[in-house]
């Protein structure tokens, strides 16, 4: 048996576009996307998307989103790498569920603190924050959605709004995480709140027989751009079909335009889509 040929390999793609409403107001894109390793291919890949809150009360949330995807992908990549040789997946699952959320929040807050030290808050920013209790991480408030694909498991972590979809080889779409009813009416759980780690939703799925063919991560501006949920869910099989018919390069070439069309005709919010696809030869 040729183990190397049997090892599932993954590829990453993605794009983030500034929302139509933010184009009109001159605000920067509050979303961010990042994957590791940078080459976007391998048997271990981590992809994250984040959404800065965007209102005046969170004046650095675009930076908060960037710090979130950078720290999350680094930390989760390090975590999964350190667990590659672990024999007991139950212990890996437990560490992913209990240790990782705390570590993610801590790493993000450390990164925020460093950023504040290097770039002190202005008087205007302090006014926007209300000069409350000296905890100025609120200025960077953001969500974080992260997926790690490895040889033996897939790990999903999410804090705040946004969506993760998995698509089977046959094109069936599902959501790997339970719904959080608090994510409603522009409100979201956030990295900037106390005990943010406890708001994470985590799913650890060992790969037993069939792994997802495709995993999509989106900030909420994307699903909110469709008239109904069915329209958003259709993105899964459509992208799978396109990759199989025309290759991942075709996605790279067109994704920015598709997302720009979506925000303009849809939510007006920043739109980010991350794609993890299990490697398939281009059949087009």
């Amino acid at each position, binding site marked *: 048996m040729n183990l190397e040929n049997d090892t599932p390999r993954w590829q990453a793609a993605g794009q983030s576009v500034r*929302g*139509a*409403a933010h184009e*009109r107001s001159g605000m920067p894109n509050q979303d961010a996307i990042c994957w590791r390793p940078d080459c976007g291919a391998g048997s271990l890949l981590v992809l994250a998307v984040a*959404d800065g*809150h*965007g*209102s*005046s*009360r*969170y004046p650095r949330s675009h930076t908060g989103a960037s710090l979130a995807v950078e720290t999350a992908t680094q930390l989760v990549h390090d975590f999964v790498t350190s667990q590659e040789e672990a024999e007991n997946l139950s212990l890996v699952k437990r560490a992913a569920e209990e240790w990782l959320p705390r570590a993610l929040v801590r790493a993000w807050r450390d990164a925020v603190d460093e950023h504040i030290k290097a770039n002190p808050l202005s008087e205007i920013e302090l006014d926007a924050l209300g000069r409350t209790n000296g905890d100025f991480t*609120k200025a960077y*408030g953001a969500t974080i959605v992260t997926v790690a694909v490895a040889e033996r498991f897939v790990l999903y972590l999410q804090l705040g*709004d946004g969506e993760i979809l998995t698509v089977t080889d046959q094109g069936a779409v599902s959501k790997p995480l339970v719904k959080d009813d*608090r*994510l*409603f*009416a*522009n*409100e*979201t*759980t*956030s990295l*900037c*709140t*106390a005990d943010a780690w406890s708001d994470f939703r985590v799913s650890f799925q060992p790969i037993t027989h069939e792994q997802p063919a495709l995993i999509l991560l989106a900030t*909420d*501006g994307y*699903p*909110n*751009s*469709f*008239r*109904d949920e*069915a*329209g*958003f869910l*259709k*993105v899964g099989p*459509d*992208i799978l079909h*396109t990759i199989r018919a*025309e290759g991942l390069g*075709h996605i790279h070439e*067109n994704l920015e335009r*598709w997302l720009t*069309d*979506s*925000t*303009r*005709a*849809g*939510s*007006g*919010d920043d739109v980010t889509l991350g794609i993890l696809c299990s490697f398939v030869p281009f059949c087009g």
Partner: protein
Amino acid sequence: MSMRPGGELATRPLHFIWIADCSGSMAVDGKIQSLNTAIKEAIPHMQDVADENPNAQVLVRAVRFSDGAQWHVSQATDIADFKWDDLDAGGVTAMGKALSIVADQLKIPPMDERALPPVLVLISDGQPTDDFAGGLQALMNEPWGRKAVRIAIAIGEDADQEVLKKFIANPELRPLQANNPESLIKYIRWVSTAVLKSASSPASQSAAASTAGLNVPIPALPDTTGPSADDVW
């Protein structure tokens, strides 16, 4: 040119509902005429706000309450097509019933989870004569009722401030007191432009930060100070 993935795209609906007191006391000193005038004058400004944000579809309805409560404008109407038929006054103050029928329309469905927070504007010059608590409870039982931007305008000194505060259910926001036609026009203009603009923004925020209920930033109030001699209500 390849096909964009996914189904049909659509802007997000923003439901704006006037809830207007049409009890007999609204016929006194031209209150109902002033309200009709204020809302009519606000419509083009609402249309301007909607034009500035084409990603929010502003849909307007109106409820009237007196001896009972009915939809004055029952269809959620795009603000571009919205026209105001004058209200008339007579009867008692079935405010609770009015909140109940609004609550029915805020259920999911017919409301959509992807909608922007609705804006509810309650305008009254008196005290409810029916089961206000029951109507308010029905409204607050609905997720979109709890998360709506709820603004109250008190017309004249006899308006029940405590009832309006309960409707707002937010200590950071008080009922707007309109004691003359000019201040009523200013408040109606404010809620239909500044508040509408704020509610139509896609910005999100931490749920923990909005425990007070302000999930949409409320803009600064208009200046309605003036000589008290102008107060006619």
